[in-house]
């Protein structure tokens, strides 16, 4: 991995390559981004910004998947 950076992903430290967008990070984690909500540093990241926002060192990212059972 070139220039890895450390982020907190779903509550755990994780090393990722620098320069990934949030969307690319989701893909790398094999997460289908259509059906998740992403919180970045305490705020929901709007869907249209996932392709633009680059993940920075020390970002705190929480991903919540749709859950449908009852």
């Amino acid at each position, binding site marked *: 991995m070139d220039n890895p950076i450390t982020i907190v992903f779903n*509550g755990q430290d994780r090393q990722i390559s620098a320069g990934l967008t949030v969307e690319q990070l989701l893909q790398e984690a*094999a997460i289908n981004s*259509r059906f998740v*909500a992403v919180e970045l540093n305490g705020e*929901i990241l709007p869907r249209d910004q996932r392709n633009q926002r680059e993940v920075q060192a020390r970002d705190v990212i929480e991903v*919540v998947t749709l859950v449908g059972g*009852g």
Partner: protein
Amino acid sequence: MTQNLSVSEQVRYSRHLMLPEIGIAGQLRLKESAVLLIGLGGLGSPLAMYLAAAGIGRLGLVDPDRVDLSNLQRQIIHSTTNAEQLKVDSAAATIRDLNPHVKVECYPVRFDISNAESLAAPYDVIIDGTDNFATRYLVNDIAVMQQKPNIYGSILRFEGQATVLNYKGGPCYRCIFPTPPPSGLIPSCGEAGVIGVLPGLIGMIQATEAIKVLLNANDTLQGRLLCVDAWKMKFRELKIRRNPQCSVCGDQPSITTLRDENYVNTCETLVPVTISMPLKLSIHEYRELRENQTPHILIDVREEFEFLTCNLGGKLIPLSKLKEHLVQLPKTAMIVVHCKSGGRSATAAKLLCDHGFEQVCNLEGGILAWIDQIDPSLPKY
């Protein structure tokens, strides 16, 4: 205020009356309230019982199903002797036993576009205890259209979520998850399982929030999506906000009547499934893929004893068990399957493609070819 509490009600609710946040005024408010509970399954069971015990005046129960033996691991409002009864009747009997002051209204129907408006109209608060996305989005949208708080909860496996939607300027479900997922993408509890206590945990959080909303409380889960991992017993919260661009509660909504959205077709049927063909992956192509750190999921479809002998670090899912694990695998990710020499994995790859997985590769020659061509240090068997 038109009603009063009888002596027996004062005794029954005495622990509420002691609380300054409730008191006689609050208890009367609960007595004058009407709550529509959609779904009498895992979430609906504790919800109905605690709301009834709390003295909600009128409880509407919506569920078309009958009690099945497989429900009783979590749906504790029903009982073994009530198997095969309509869930609304079974629940109503338990509620009447628990608190005869509660007026119960039973609707043994599926909550759908034809009845949603008239069912929801006579109630103050709607509670989402449904088990499918089509109904969830319908419940959300009718709550927005009728300007009623929607107490949301959902569960799967060990994971639960709860929040208060459409309350005091807060978000609706579509602000967080704008569109329903296609059918089959996200499994139901019937397909993926659920630990029986989880709907109890989440349903009671919903019941707590429903009571607080009826009491006009400010410190509710509004604006916070509570996520529970019951296996790790960890709670986390996501800050959620109303989205001004939301298609139903936004400033310029595109969904203003239930006819603007096709609730059945978006979730349940008519989802086009593209069937792909498995790709053949040579050992050297696979080595390149690993070296380039191309994201993929490696699945080893051999038996456990073979895996213990030697493996490539894949996820062990024996071919015979693959079908039951499909729901855990992402449909759009690249999946590479392998076995000992390529036969079983070809069957597995075909099965994955037939179930709508989009990028499936079969490792030709299997682990034996890998040992011969790449890594002779692994034991051959």
